[in-house]
């Protein structure tokens, strides 16, 4: 268990307005899969304030390089080479170090390597589509990958997912667990997508759009996109250790 000051105190209650509501009629699958009754809100306790931790021993040599990891360095994936990088922070604007970040994505043609994906865009024999890394002491992470293609999906008559990378982040507490998606600056499909549009606050949706970052792009090699992630924080006041009501 961590002794860091930011790992004490209860989790800051989730600001639900920052997130999509469970039910959204334009995202049809959410209709039967959204709870109707209210969530039960409680202050966090040990079950939410602790969580699994993962060390570098779980990582393989190629895990954060999606261009090469499926073939273990033998042959590169097809696509536009990009670096995706950023920091994991908490609501108190502090870095979240040593936390696992997992990503998955479609290949350059918009096809996933999954037994249930039947889109006729071809699989790339050199692309698996998943990667993972652990943030450094400053909460920083990097992936090398290819720009995923947009793809059509069955929802309304002609819906397309914008180019996106799925992100899964742990933080240091099970109550911080988050899955989200990163979009790409300038993609006209973002604001036509019913899944992106489940986020009702435009400013919040914009936080999922990674800007082109030429300062990290390597000439004659790859472009770069920056994507920072904010997890729930923990309340830190000098009164946290006082007895209830004191």
């Amino acid at each position: 268990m961590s002794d860091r000051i930011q790992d004490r105190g209860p989790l800051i209650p989730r600001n639900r307005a920052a997130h999509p509501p469970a039910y959204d009629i334009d995202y049809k699958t959410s209709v039967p899969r959204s709870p109707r009754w209210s969530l039960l809100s409680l202050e966090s306790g040990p079950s939410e304030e602790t969580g699994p931790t993962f060390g570098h021993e779980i990582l393989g040599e190629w895990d954060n390089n999606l261009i090469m990891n499926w073939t273990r360095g033998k042959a590169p994936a097809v696509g536009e080479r990009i670096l995706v990088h950023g920091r994991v922070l908490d609501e108190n604007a502090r870095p979240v170090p040593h936390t696992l970040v997992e990503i998955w994505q479609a290949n350059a043609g918009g096809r996933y390597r999954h037994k249930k994906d039947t889109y006729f865009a071809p699989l790339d024999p050199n692309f698996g589509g998943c990667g993972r890394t652990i943030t450094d002491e400053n909460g920083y992470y990097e992936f090398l990958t290819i720009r995923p293609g947009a793809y059509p999906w069955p929802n309304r008559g002609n819906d397309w997912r914008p180019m996106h990378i799925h992100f899964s982040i742990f933080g240091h507490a099970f109550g911080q667990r988050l899955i989200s998606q990163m979009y790409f600056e300038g993609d006209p499909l973002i604001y036509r997508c019913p899944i992106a549009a489940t986020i009702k606050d435009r400013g919040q949706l914009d936080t999922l759009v990674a800007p082109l970052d030429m300062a990290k792009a390597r000439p004659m090699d790859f472009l770069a996109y920056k994507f920072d992630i904010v997890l729930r924080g923990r309340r830190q006041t000098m009164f946290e250790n006082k007895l209830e009501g004191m």
Partner: protein
Amino acid sequence: MVQKLDTLIETPSQTAGPYVHIGCMPTYAGNAGAYDLEIGESPIADGAQGEVIEITGEVIDGTGWALRDAMMESWQPDAAGKFPGQAGADPKVSGYCRFAADSETGKFTLRTVKPGAVQARSGAMQAPHISVWVVARGINIGLQTRIYFEDEDNSTDPLLNRIEQQNRVQTLIAKKTAEGKYTFNIVLQGDNETVFLDI
């Protein structure tokens, strides 16, 4: 105008989608070998102390259909109520598991040890429970819930007692079907909708 807060807003959630397994459970997605080591394969190693139990169930939508693409994660303490990393915790208990609805039948199975009771910040003892987080296509933000056990004393648990409609408490309680075997369904919507948590 007022001063500017120096806090940040949490990154908004987006659905895990139908292909969450690619990133989280590659073998399930049909991509065995994507990682040398997948995380969360079991919350216990051989030799974990306590009673080994098996919880089976389904994640059911508002029409009564069992999801085939749901993924779950569980987090729990060891049989003595200690979480991994705490002094004296059972080194054979990682406490963390990833499991999925079967893509043909929708059934899931969680094999673990029965957790011990844990004290809440208020000092009250909580009844033994496993925290569960459910994601899937159509779920816009991961759903938190808990598995309690019908053969434990749940009468003074602070969370269960906060549920005004006590007829809903049973949605959080696993039913014992045989020695070491329990069933627990997660109902996303409709009759017997599971109590989901904001915690």
